[in-house]
Protein backbone atom coordinates (compact mmCIF):
# COMPACT_ATOMS: atom_id res chain seq x y z
CA UNK A 1 0.00 0.00 0.00
CA UNK A 2 1.12 3.52 -0.79
CA UNK A 3 0.35 6.13 1.86
CA UNK A 4 0.80 9.66 0.56
CA UNK A 5 -0.22 13.03 1.90
CA UNK A 6 -2.82 15.12 0.10
CA UNK A 7 -0.43 17.95 -0.80
CA UNK A 8 2.07 15.61 -2.50
CA UNK A 9 -0.70 13.73 -4.29
CA UNK A 10 -2.11 17.02 -5.58
CA UNK A 11 1.34 18.26 -6.63
CA UNK A 12 1.88 15.13 -8.75
CA UNK A 13 -1.52 15.56 -10.42
CA UNK A 14 -0.87 19.28 -11.02
CA UNK A 15 2.51 18.47 -12.63
CA UNK A 16 0.89 15.89 -14.91
CA UNK A 17 -1.83 18.38 -15.92
CA UNK A 18 0.70 21.14 -16.53
CA UNK A 19 2.86 19.05 -18.88
CA UNK A 20 -0.06 17.44 -20.74
CA UNK A 21 0.00 16.39 -23.62
CA UNK A 22 3.62 15.46 -22.88
CA UNK A 23 4.34 12.94 -20.15
CA UNK A 24 5.40 14.38 -16.80
CA UNK A 25 7.79 12.59 -14.42
CA UNK A 26 9.45 12.91 -11.07
CA UNK A 27 10.10 11.32 -7.71
CA UNK A 28 9.05 11.72 -4.12
CA UNK A 29 12.02 11.08 -1.88
CA UNK A 30 11.88 9.90 1.69
CA UNK A 31 14.26 8.84 4.45
CA UNK A 32 15.95 5.56 3.45
CA UNK A 33 13.97 2.57 4.70
CA UNK A 34 11.01 4.68 5.87
CA UNK A 35 8.66 3.99 2.92
CA UNK A 36 7.38 7.54 3.57
CA UNK A 37 7.18 9.85 0.52
CA UNK A 38 8.21 13.19 2.00
CA UNK A 39 9.97 15.40 -0.52
CA UNK A 40 8.35 16.12 -3.90
CA UNK A 41 10.90 16.47 -6.71
CA UNK A 42 9.42 17.14 -10.16
CA UNK A 43 11.87 16.21 -12.94
CA UNK A 44 12.18 17.39 -16.51
CA UNK A 45 11.07 14.89 -19.13
CA UNK A 46 14.16 15.02 -21.35
CA UNK A 47 12.22 13.19 -24.06
CA UNK A 48 9.46 15.89 -24.11
CA UNK A 49 7.15 13.34 -25.60
CA UNK A 50 3.49 12.31 -25.26
CA UNK A 51 4.54 8.63 -25.34
CA UNK A 52 7.91 8.45 -23.56
CA UNK A 53 9.62 9.92 -20.53
CA UNK A 54 13.21 9.95 -19.45
CA UNK A 55 15.11 11.75 -16.71
CA UNK A 56 17.95 13.76 -18.22
CA UNK A 57 21.16 11.84 -17.45
CA UNK A 58 22.90 14.80 -15.75
CA UNK A 59 19.76 15.54 -13.70
CA UNK A 60 19.58 11.86 -12.72
CA UNK A 61 23.16 11.90 -11.41
CA UNK A 62 22.52 15.11 -9.44
CA UNK A 63 19.34 13.63 -8.00
CA UNK A 64 21.04 10.45 -6.78
CA UNK A 65 23.94 12.42 -5.29
CA UNK A 66 21.45 14.54 -3.40
CA UNK A 67 19.48 11.53 -2.18
CA UNK A 68 22.69 9.82 -1.10
CA UNK A 69 23.90 12.91 0.79
CA UNK A 70 20.51 13.19 2.58
CA UNK A 71 20.28 9.44 3.27
CA UNK A 72 17.08 9.38 1.21
CA UNK A 73 15.74 7.06 -1.44
CA UNK A 74 13.16 7.42 -4.21
CA UNK A 75 10.03 6.21 -2.38
CA UNK A 76 7.76 7.13 -5.29
CA UNK A 77 8.71 7.30 -8.96
CA UNK A 78 5.84 8.85 -10.90
CA UNK A 79 4.98 9.60 -14.50
CA UNK A 80 1.89 10.34 -16.52
CA UNK A 81 0.17 8.67 -19.42
CA UNK A 82 -1.60 11.27 -21.48
CA UNK A 83 -3.73 9.13 -23.79
CA UNK A 84 -3.95 5.73 -22.10
CA UNK A 85 -4.86 4.28 -18.72
CA UNK A 86 -2.71 4.67 -15.63
CA UNK A 87 -1.16 1.21 -15.92
CA UNK A 88 2.54 0.40 -16.56
CA UNK A 89 3.37 -0.05 -20.24
CA UNK A 90 5.78 -2.71 -21.50
CA UNK A 91 8.45 -0.03 -21.70
CA UNK A 92 7.74 1.05 -18.12
CA UNK A 93 8.17 -2.53 -16.94
CA UNK A 94 11.41 -3.08 -18.86
CA UNK A 95 12.99 0.05 -17.37
CA UNK A 96 11.70 -0.36 -13.80
CA UNK A 97 14.74 -0.92 -11.60
CA UNK A 98 13.96 0.33 -8.12
CA UNK A 99 12.47 -2.72 -6.37
CA UNK A 100 11.65 -0.67 -3.26
CA UNK A 101 9.86 2.13 -5.09
CA UNK A 102 6.16 2.70 -5.55
CA UNK A 103 5.64 3.33 -9.26
CA UNK A 104 2.83 5.87 -9.50
CA UNK A 105 0.99 6.26 -12.79
CA UNK A 106 -1.28 9.19 -13.46
CA UNK A 107 -3.53 9.39 -16.49
CA UNK A 108 -4.58 12.76 -17.87
CA UNK A 109 -6.54 11.35 -20.83
CA UNK A 110 -9.81 12.68 -19.36
CA UNK A 111 -9.91 16.40 -18.70
CA UNK A 112 -12.13 16.22 -15.63
CA UNK A 113 -10.90 13.10 -13.81
CA UNK A 114 -7.32 12.07 -13.12
CA UNK A 115 -6.54 8.41 -12.53
CA UNK A 116 -3.87 7.97 -9.83
CA UNK A 117 -2.65 4.41 -9.30
CA UNK A 118 0.37 2.79 -7.68
CA UNK A 119 2.32 -0.35 -8.52
CA UNK A 120 5.28 -2.41 -7.45
CA UNK A 121 7.37 -3.56 -10.39
CA UNK A 122 9.87 -6.27 -9.42
CA UNK A 123 11.67 -8.51 -11.92
CA UNK A 124 9.12 -7.64 -14.59
CA UNK A 125 6.12 -8.48 -12.41
CA UNK A 126 3.55 -5.72 -11.88
CA UNK A 127 1.48 -5.70 -8.70
CA UNK A 128 -1.09 -2.98 -8.17
CA UNK A 129 -1.47 -1.71 -4.60
CA UNK A 130 -4.03 0.46 -2.83
CA UNK A 131 -3.35 4.17 -2.48
CA UNK A 132 -4.27 5.91 0.75
CA UNK A 133 -4.28 9.70 0.56
CA UNK A 134 -4.02 11.21 4.02
CA UNK A 135 -4.52 14.76 5.21
CA UNK A 136 -1.36 15.87 6.91
Amino acid sequence: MLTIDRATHDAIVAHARRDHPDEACGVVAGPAGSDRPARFIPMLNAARSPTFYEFDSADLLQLYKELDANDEEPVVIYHSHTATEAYPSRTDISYASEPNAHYVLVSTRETDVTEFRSFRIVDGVVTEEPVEVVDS
Partner: protein
Amino acid sequence: MAIEVKIPTILRTYTNGEKAVEGKGDTLAALIDDLDANHPGLKGRLITDDGSLHRFVNVYVNDEDVRFTGSLDTALKDGDAVTVLPAVAGG
Protein backbone atom coordinates in the same frame (compact mmCIF):
# COMPACT_ATOMS: atom_id res chain seq x y z
CA MET B 1 45.31 0.99 -10.21
CA ALA B 2 42.10 1.38 -8.30
CA ILE B 3 38.87 2.89 -9.49
CA GLU B 4 35.89 3.30 -7.20
CA VAL B 5 32.61 2.15 -8.71
CA LYS B 6 29.29 3.10 -7.13
CA ILE B 7 26.68 0.40 -7.50
CA PRO B 8 22.91 1.08 -7.54
CA THR B 9 20.52 -0.76 -5.21
CA ILE B 10 19.25 -3.14 -7.89
CA LEU B 11 22.77 -4.46 -8.64
CA ARG B 12 23.96 -4.82 -5.06
CA THR B 13 22.91 -8.45 -5.09
CA TYR B 14 26.13 -8.94 -7.09
CA THR B 15 28.31 -7.05 -4.59
CA ASN B 16 27.15 -8.57 -1.28
CA GLY B 17 25.12 -5.44 -0.65
CA GLU B 18 28.12 -3.13 -1.02
CA LYS B 19 27.29 0.37 -2.31
CA ALA B 20 30.73 0.80 -3.83
CA VAL B 21 33.41 -1.60 -5.00
CA GLU B 22 36.88 -1.19 -6.46
CA GLY B 23 38.10 -2.34 -9.82
CA LYS B 24 40.81 -1.75 -12.36
CA GLY B 25 41.17 -1.26 -16.10
CA ASP B 26 42.40 1.19 -18.72
CA THR B 27 38.98 1.48 -20.28
CA LEU B 28 35.42 1.12 -19.11
CA ALA B 29 35.19 -2.21 -20.95
CA ALA B 30 38.28 -3.51 -19.13
CA LEU B 31 36.96 -2.26 -15.79
CA ILE B 32 33.66 -4.07 -16.31
CA ASP B 33 35.53 -7.30 -17.15
CA ASP B 34 37.54 -6.88 -13.94
CA LEU B 35 34.40 -6.23 -11.89
CA ASP B 36 32.72 -9.29 -13.36
CA ALA B 37 35.65 -11.48 -12.31
CA ASN B 38 35.03 -10.50 -8.66
CA HIS B 39 31.26 -10.07 -8.91
CA PRO B 40 30.07 -12.63 -11.45
CA GLY B 41 26.94 -11.62 -13.34
CA LEU B 42 27.47 -7.89 -13.08
CA LYS B 43 28.71 -7.58 -16.66
CA GLY B 44 25.53 -9.12 -18.03
CA ARG B 45 23.50 -6.38 -16.38
CA LEU B 46 25.62 -3.63 -17.89
CA ILE B 47 26.43 -4.90 -21.36
CA THR B 48 24.10 -6.41 -23.96
CA ASP B 49 24.74 -9.64 -25.85
CA ASP B 50 26.02 -7.63 -28.83
CA GLY B 51 28.63 -5.97 -26.64
CA SER B 52 27.24 -2.47 -26.17
CA LEU B 53 26.29 -0.65 -23.01
CA HIS B 54 22.75 -1.48 -21.90
CA ARG B 55 20.21 1.29 -22.47
CA PHE B 56 18.70 0.58 -19.03
CA VAL B 57 21.79 1.84 -17.23
CA ASN B 58 23.68 5.11 -17.18
CA VAL B 59 27.40 5.01 -16.44
CA TYR B 60 29.32 8.12 -15.44
CA VAL B 61 33.06 8.64 -15.20
CA ASN B 62 33.84 11.60 -12.96
CA ASP B 63 30.25 12.81 -13.43
CA GLU B 64 30.37 12.63 -17.25
CA ASP B 65 27.86 10.30 -18.92
CA VAL B 66 30.04 7.88 -20.91
CA ARG B 67 27.61 8.05 -23.84
CA PHE B 68 29.33 11.37 -24.57
CA THR B 69 32.89 10.21 -23.91
CA GLY B 70 33.27 7.06 -26.00
CA SER B 71 30.99 4.63 -24.18
CA LEU B 72 32.85 1.40 -23.34
CA ASP B 73 36.06 2.78 -24.87
CA THR B 74 36.16 5.64 -22.35
CA ALA B 75 39.70 5.80 -20.96
CA LEU B 76 40.16 5.39 -17.20
CA LYS B 77 43.00 6.20 -14.87
CA ASP B 78 43.84 5.58 -11.25
CA GLY B 79 41.59 7.56 -8.94
CA ASP B 80 38.69 7.95 -11.38
CA ALA B 81 35.21 7.62 -9.93
CA VAL B 82 32.63 5.58 -11.79
CA THR B 83 28.92 5.71 -10.97
CA VAL B 84 26.33 3.27 -12.31
CA LEU B 85 22.67 4.31 -12.14
CA PRO B 86 19.55 2.73 -13.56
CA ALA B 87 17.99 4.96 -16.21
CA VAL B 88 14.63 6.31 -15.08
CA ALA B 89 12.48 6.15 -18.17
CA GLY B 90 9.42 4.55 -19.66
CA GLY B 91 6.52 5.02 -22.00
